[in-house]
Every structure is written in C-alpha cells, then in structure tokens.
C-alpha cells in the first residue's frame, strides 16, 4: 500500500514543478528583458510586420496574467509556438518528430555508461591502490574534465578523418532507406523487421556519438560509486558479515553493494539529465537529427520558441527519469519504503 501511495504522490508532484518551470521561463522571456516581442523574433526583432504577427500570436497585448494563462494552456495543449528556423512549422511537431533519434542516442549512451561506471567504480573501490583503481580514476577524471563537444571533435578527427573507422555524420547511410518507422528507434525497427543490414548500419552510425556521450557521463557515476563503496566497505556490518564467514565476493556484492547503491542511483538520474543536455553538442557535431541539433539551430537564430520547446521537453524527460530513479530507490532501501 505504501509503495503505491509513494508513486502516485511523486507523479502528482511533477505537475506543480512543471508549472513552476514554465512560470520561470515566462518571467524570464516576457517580463525581464526590455523587448519581449524581440525575444521571440531573434534576429528579426526590428521587422514591424513580424512584430505585429508575433504580438497577435502570443497575446502580447493582453495583461500579463492573461498572457501567462494563455501560455500555460498552450503548453498543456501541445502548442509550443512556431519555429523560425523551420519556416513556421509548429515546434511541438518538430520536436516530436526528432525526439526518437535523441532518445535512441541517450538510451544507448546510458546503457553503455551506467553499468560500466558502476562496475568500474566497484572495482576501483575494492582494489584500491592497484593499477585497476588508477586507470578507472583516470578515465573518470578525463571524462568529467573534457567538454563534450571537444571530445566529439577529437573522436571525429582521430577515428573518422584519418582512419575512416567510423562514419562522419548522420544516422544512416544516405544512399539507403532507413528502416520503416514503428518506434522511431532505428535499432528496434530494423530488428523487428529482421532487416540485418539496416540493423548493422544503424548500430554502426550510432556507435561513435553514443560513445562520446557516454564517456562524458561515465565519470560521475564511477566516482560516486567508488566513494560510497569505500564508505560502506569500512562499515561495521561488513565486518560482521566477514565475521560470519561470508566469502569476500559475497561481502562485496550482497552486503556492501546493496547499501552503497543508493547515492549512485540518485546520481544516475542526474547524469541522464546531463546526457540529455549534452546531446546538444554531440548531435550538432555528428549530424545526428535529434532535438539537440534543433536546439542548436534555434540558438543560432535566437528562435526563442524553439529553445523554449526544447527546454520544456527536456524538463519533462528529466522529471520522468528522476521519478523512475526515486521509485527504484524506494524499492531497494527498506527505510524509505517503511517510513522507518
């Protein structure tokens, strides 16, 4: 019973937070700068025809509270404005179309980075001061110190232009037809259609961008896992387990890990959020047609509708990811579950 209550409560929580975020973006874009209409027009801020159109469209002539209501209602109905970059196509539609590509990238990167980070973190903590520890810490340190866009560029330089080991950009060879769209995830679509060639190509094009993204986030997970494992390994109950005669392997995986996992789980929620934001860099450099790339284009044109749409979608994704993390956390930590 308590589990369900917890889950429902958390889901309901998302709504006020979302409204809060929207309120903030509203304030920032509509009230703070001198020229709110100009914000939406970006570089065409001075064109009077455009101005009139925007004023009409976004109700700039109404009192502020009304504007906010229009804004909120609009968002909840899926109206995120029109994009300057794409000739007035609705932003919502653009994002929906490009979202699967980004999700595929983020999920691929997470599937690679999170388990690897956890495993290396445990290894690093249990084999402290050996070469394994040193290498893991080195990887983590580099991962968090290198800007994602630089890493992507370096990878391109090293593995693409000189050696031609990986494709330069895009999601799929442009002389072929991509797999039929069922989910939007090329890997899944081609697997379902039993199209081995498409599957191979999808994976081939996915590899390098996912690696770049994954490498940027693996460091955070590794370090958090390492530090909480170190803390747990010196705790009393680990000593009790050894005193019972439990083999070292079980001590690490059954006793220590169960308690050390909490903070890492929390941090994975955050790193997935980070990964979603880093797609902005990876997609642009690897020509990956996702919402990150759309965001960069919107920023170049200062198309606020596009940027805002991107922000909202990312926020929702981040909140959902954190929700899942919180539920998993309640699942593994009995003290949270029983309210102990």
């Amino acid at each position, binding site marked *: 019973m308590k589990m369900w209550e917890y889950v429902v409560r958390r889901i309901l929580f998302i709504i006020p937070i979302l409204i809060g975020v929207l309120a903030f973006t509203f304030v920032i874009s509509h009230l703070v700068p001198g020229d709110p209409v100009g914000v939406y027009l970006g570089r065409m801020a001075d064109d009077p025809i455009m101005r009139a159109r925007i004023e009409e469209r976004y109700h700039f002539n109404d009192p502020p509270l009304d504007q906010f209501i229009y804004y909120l209602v609009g968002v909840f109905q899926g109206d995120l404005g029109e994009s300057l970059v794409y000739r007035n196509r609705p932003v919502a539609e653009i994002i929906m179309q490009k979202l699967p590509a980004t999700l595929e990238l983020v999920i691929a990167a997470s599937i690679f980075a999170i388990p690897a980070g956890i495993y290396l973190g445990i290894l690093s903590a249990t084999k402290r001061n050996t070469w394994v520890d040193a290498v893991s810490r080195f990887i983590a340190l580099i991962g968090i110190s290198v800007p*994602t866009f630089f890493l992507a560029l370096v990878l391109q330089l090293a593995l693409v232009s000189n050696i031609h080991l990986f494709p330069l950009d895009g999601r799929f060879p442009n002389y072929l037809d991509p797999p039929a769209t069922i989910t939007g995830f090329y890997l899944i679509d081609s697997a379902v259609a039993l199209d081995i060639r498409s599957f191979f190509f999808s994976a081939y094009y996915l590899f390098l961008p996912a690696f770049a993204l994954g490498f940027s986030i693996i460091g955070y997970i590794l370090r958090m896992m390492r530090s909480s494992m170190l803390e747990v390994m010196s705790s009393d109950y680990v000593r009790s387990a050894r005193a019972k005669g439990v083999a070292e392997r079980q001590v690490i995986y059954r006793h220590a890990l169960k308690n050390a996992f909490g903070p890492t789980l929390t941090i994975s929620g955050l790193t997935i959020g980070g990964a979603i934001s880093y797609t902005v860099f990876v997609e642009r450099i690897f020509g990956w047609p996702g919402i990150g790339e759309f965001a960069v284009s919107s920023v170049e044109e200062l198309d606020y509708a596009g940027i805002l749409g991107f922000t909202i979608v990312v926020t929702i994704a981040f909140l959902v990811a954190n929700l899942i993390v919180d539920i998993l956390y309640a699942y593994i930590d009995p003290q949270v579950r029983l309210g102990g």
Partner: protein
Amino acid sequence: MKESDSKHQNAIIGGIRGRIDDFKSRHESRIKETRYSLYLFSRSLLSMVGLLIIFCVVIVALIAPFIAHDHPIYQNVGGEIQEFWPVSVGSQLLPPSEDYWFGTDYKGRDIYSMVLYGAWKALYIGMLVVIPAAFIGILLGALAGYFGRALGEVIMRITDIFLSVPSLVLAMAIVAALGPSITNITIAMIITWWPWYTRLVFGQVLSIREKQFIEASRSVGAGHRRILFKHVIKNSLSPVVVQASSDFGYVILAAAALGWLGLGAPPDTAEWGRMISENQAHVISAWWVVTFPGLAIVITVLGFNLLGDGIRDVLDPKLRR
C-alpha cells in the same frame, strides 16, 4: 627619558607577544588541525599537481598580454569596450610553426595568443559565478533549514523547481532570453548553480539543528542571528567548500559550452568555446584550430577537479586519518 621609552617599547612588544601567544593557545587545536590538513593535502601527489596547474593558469592569465605574440584591439561598440581580433587574410589556417606556436585559425589569427587571452575570461567567469552562487545558496539553505516550516517549504520548493531542469539547458534558455553576452551567461549560471548549494546546506543545517550545542546556545540566551551565523553556518561550511572547489571546474566547462553555442562572447573574441565553434568546420584539414583551445579547457578544468578532489579528501571527516 630614554629608559622609560625603551621600557615602553618592551611593554608594547611584550603585549603583542602576549597577544600572539594568547591567540595561539586559544586556537591551538584549530591550528594543529589546519596544519594537519595542509600536510595531508601536500601528501597527495594529484592534489599538488592540481594546485600547480591552477597556479600556472592563473599566472598565464595575468601575464597574457606580456607573453602573447599578437594582441587584440579594443573597440567601442555601442557604449561598451569590446575586444576584437583583426582578420589577417594572408595567414589563414597555417599549421603550428616557429612564428605561430599553435598555428592560425580560419581568419588568420594567432591561436597561441588567443588562447592566452582567453584564460583570464575563463577564470573570471569561474570566480564570478561560484562565489555569488555559493553565497546565495548558503544563505537560503541556512534560512530554510533553520527556520523550517513555511519559509523552509517555500524555499525548498523553489529550489526543486530549479533543480528539475538540467543546468545547461536552463542556462541556455536564460541567456537566449537575455541576449548573448558574457555578463548574461554569468547571471544565467549563477541562477542555475545556487540551488545546489541550497540543498546541500539545507541538509547540513537540518542535522546540525538537532545537535545539542545549539540547544545549549539557546539556553544561555543566544539570539537566532548569532546562532545562525556563528554555529550553524560555520559548521556546515565544509561540504560547501568541497563542492565549490570542484564547481569552479564545472562552471568553466559550462561557460565554454555556452560560448561554443554562441551565447557568450561576441564573434572574433578570444573565448575558448567560441574559438572551437568558429573553427570546427575546418578541423578535418587543420587539426590544430580546435585542439589547442580544447586542451586549454581540459587542462584548466582538470586542475580544478584535482584540486577539488584533494580538498574533499582532506576535509571529508570519514576519509581523514
């Protein structure tokens, strides 16, 4: 009256000495702890390397105009002084050589000099973001934790709102609304960063508040303000310091990212992120245009991360001794 003069002098010196001794004995344990902390820090090779790196970067940033080969010109653009690197048509995309240590970019400018000038901007943004953000964060977190109930709820809800958007994306949206400039990215990043400190301090304060020495202070009549500043905040500072020292690195990284997106310095300025984004189209034929500014970012951030790690290892009570 020489004798009384010298006696007077001796009395003063004696008084000063007495005060110093007094100070020493009162703070004896704290002095010992500090010395131990410094010792621990110096024992870690990596932390010392981090310190060294930062030291070098700071020096480079400060003496950039003196060791650079080329210099920008300063123009007055709409009331503000702006840095501008003039285009040099003849020397575009030259590889690293005797004259151009890091090569030239697609507008023919000396990358080495631009990288040097960019250092100060990076450090400057770092300081200007982390310190105010920490300040605001600590204040709000302490208020929320100490006074609790309504005020605490409100503050923490607001904090939650800010924490539910990934930092980079939020900063992007804010700068896009305010207009691209270095000032605006600084403001945007302060707004993005303070919630982390608030949450950190909130947790600390909650646990300190229950401790008995707070109760003891109240019972001898200390007012809220005194307790708040003297006891609560002082004792919750240690994780904040650890976080802040690592955050310097992350802020510089984020600033470079925003610069890369075009939201920071205007074009033709020496800002590391900007330099990379302007030249990345040419990277395949000219590997140096992107590598050197990128390495500059990596080394600086690495230095701060090592320093942050070292400080954490020293201050974290569980890892001491």
